[in-house]
């Protein structure tokens, strides 16, 4: 019996082609826009998270307890050999890096700025998070005898330093003596993470140890974990093994990124709600008008005994056929847009000049996740449902006898 309702729905839609196409296009276009927006949002956040993980925290970072609070070499990880031995045994850990950092003053003849000097191993960092891919100028090297350094691009800019410039870094060593060290800039790095871009200088671990009169120590050990779902387990295991050390996940170190992600989710939801409320209004208008112009027809159908459910079914089917077409078209074009932005990215320099100066990569790549399409389907479904409620009420009020006798039109 519903087959005939379906047929009627289809035929009615075909009769008003322009109108039907308008609704379908509306749904399709707003849907693809929303899908793209969501993809870029997620892409941006995951890019930031990924950068933070690759260039700094890893999935898990170890600090001596109190170090993060005092930023003082007194609170350093001393039992490095034990930890290394332990880490080497863990097959959940993909890679790890050992860093030794100290805050101090970076200076050129023109300017001095607060900065963080980090002793690292270039080879380890490359394995850890492809740190070399962040290099924007110069060479990924500490030069002969480790006398050169890599510098965050924003810091270099502020210090008016370029490749080959001489930098002086002054800081306290492990004995509390204030020392200074000079090096030339071999490479400039740009990660998009501000801690590095605006304030970090990297030198070799050996040079750092010498400068601070401190060997076999670290301020941070960052770990890459193979399996995302195992991060917590590894964290707990490490914490049990090394009680005096702070074992922190990246999301504990960068709560702001998690907040951003959640904020974006809320933002996406609000966007979906607004867009589909408006879209529902459009579907509503079309459905209402199509009911009103067919009141007579419906009346006759009712009079000759067509069950009310059958007519309701016809209306609902009409609405859902449009939505479904809109959805399929929108999901398809949105999917293509997403695929394109996921592979080629969108260059936002055209849109917002200032974006890059705040450290964000100007070319954004979208994420694609299956649930986008599910979520979009839900939104379309709800909007459609919403849009037919009122027209169905109108339909219910139709008194066949009045319509037949011409009182209603």
């Amino acid at each position, binding site marked *: 019996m519903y087959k005939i309702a379906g047929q009627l729905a289809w035929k009615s839609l075909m009769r008003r082609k322009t109108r039907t196409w308008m609704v379908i296009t509306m749904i399709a276009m707003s849907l693809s826009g929303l899908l793209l927006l969501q993809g870029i949002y997620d892409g941006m956040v995951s890019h930031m998270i990924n950068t933070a993980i690759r260039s700094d925290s890893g999935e898990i970072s170890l600090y001596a307890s109190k170090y993060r609070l005092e930023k003082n070499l007194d609170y350093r990880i001393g039992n490095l050999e034990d930890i290394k031995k332990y880490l080497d045994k863990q097959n959940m850990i993909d890679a790890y890096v050992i860093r030794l950092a100290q805050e101090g003053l970076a200076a050129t003849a023109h300017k001095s700025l607060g900065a963080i000097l980090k002793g690292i191993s270039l080879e380890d960092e490359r394995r850890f998070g492809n740190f070399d891919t962040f290099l924007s100028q110069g060479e990924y090297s500490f030069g002969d005898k480790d006398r050169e350094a890599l510098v965050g691009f924003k810091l270099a800019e502020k210090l008016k330093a370029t490749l080959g410039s*001489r930098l002086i870094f002054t800081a306290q060593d492990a004995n509390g003596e*204030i*020392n200074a060290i*000079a090096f030339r800039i071999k490479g400039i790095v740009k990660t998009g993470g501000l801690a590095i871009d605006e304030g970090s200088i990297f030198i070799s671990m050996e040079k750092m140890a010498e400068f601070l009169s401190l060997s076999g120590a670290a301020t941070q050990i960052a770990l890459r974990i193979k399996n995302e779902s195992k991060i917590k387990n590894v964290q707990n295991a490490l914490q049990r093994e090394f009680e005096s050390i702070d074992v922190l996940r990246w999301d504990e170190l960068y709560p702001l990124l998690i907040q951003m992600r959640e904020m974006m989710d809320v933002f996406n939801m609000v966007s979906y709600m607004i867009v589909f409320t408006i879209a529902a209004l459009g579907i509503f208008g079309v459905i209402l008008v199509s009911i009103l112009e067919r009141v007579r027809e419906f009346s006759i159908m009712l009079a000759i005994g067509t069950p009310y459910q059958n007519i309701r079914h016809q209306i609902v089917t009409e609405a859902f056929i449009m939505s479904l077409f809109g959805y399929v078209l929108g999901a398809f074009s949105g999917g293509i847009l997403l695929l394109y932005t996921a592979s080629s990215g969108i260059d936002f320099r055209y849109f917002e000049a200032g974006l890059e100066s705040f450290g964000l990569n100007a070319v954004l790549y979208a994420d694609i996740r299956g649930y986008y399409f599910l979520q979009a389907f839900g939104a379309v479904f709800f909007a459609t449902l919403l849009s037919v409620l009122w027209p169905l009420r109108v339909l219910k009020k139709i008194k066949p006898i009045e319509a037949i006798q011409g009182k209603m039109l």
Partner: protein
Amino acid sequence: MKYLLSFIFITIILCGSEADMIIKKVEDNLRGDFMYAQMRMIVTGKRGVRTVEVESWSKGDNKSFIKILYPKKDRGITFLKLDTQMWQYIPKIERTIKIPPSMMLQSWMGSDFTNDDMVKESSMAKDYHANLLSKTSSTATIELRPKAHAAVVWGKIIVDIDLNHMVPITEVYYDDQMEKVRIMTFGNIQQHGSHRLPMVMELKPLDPEKKSNRTKVIFEKVDYDNYIDESYFSKHALKRYSN
């Protein structure tokens, strides 16, 4: 050919050593085991002119005690530096505060000097190669180039020296690209006991955005020859000598 090369080489060493000698003499002249000074610092910046007057007592490189005399609001604030540690006493709240090490690199009293500058003597003789550029009977011009791994920011410093008094007249600082960054001029040379020194120093940055800045230091009293009591270099001194 070989001869010629070795000749040039020897000349460079000789010249170098003469320049080094001059620099060393100048530094010795400005330095003493004990030093008492009363000085006025005038800082001209974007926000107008400020004057600070201090009294300072120091012993060797490691111990110094400073007391602020002017401006009136800050009078009585005292600083003590022993090796790598530094304390400050503020009479208004009657508290002594230990300056954390990271603060040692901060600007001192809003001047272009850092806290560390106030207590650490950097040695030109130690960090630079000196090279005599020209010499007359009364003056010498010496070029100072940093030693390979010396942690100094300058690309070079050109110093004019008054050979009669063994004091500097002007110092011009250059950056890495050999551009002038700042000029320091010295004047009003006076003899104080065993030492002879310029009583006025003025620092003038050449960076475009700092063009109007000046820092002028005027020594009002200097004494190199009197023993300074150990009592100045203890934490008790902070409060005791505050008034």
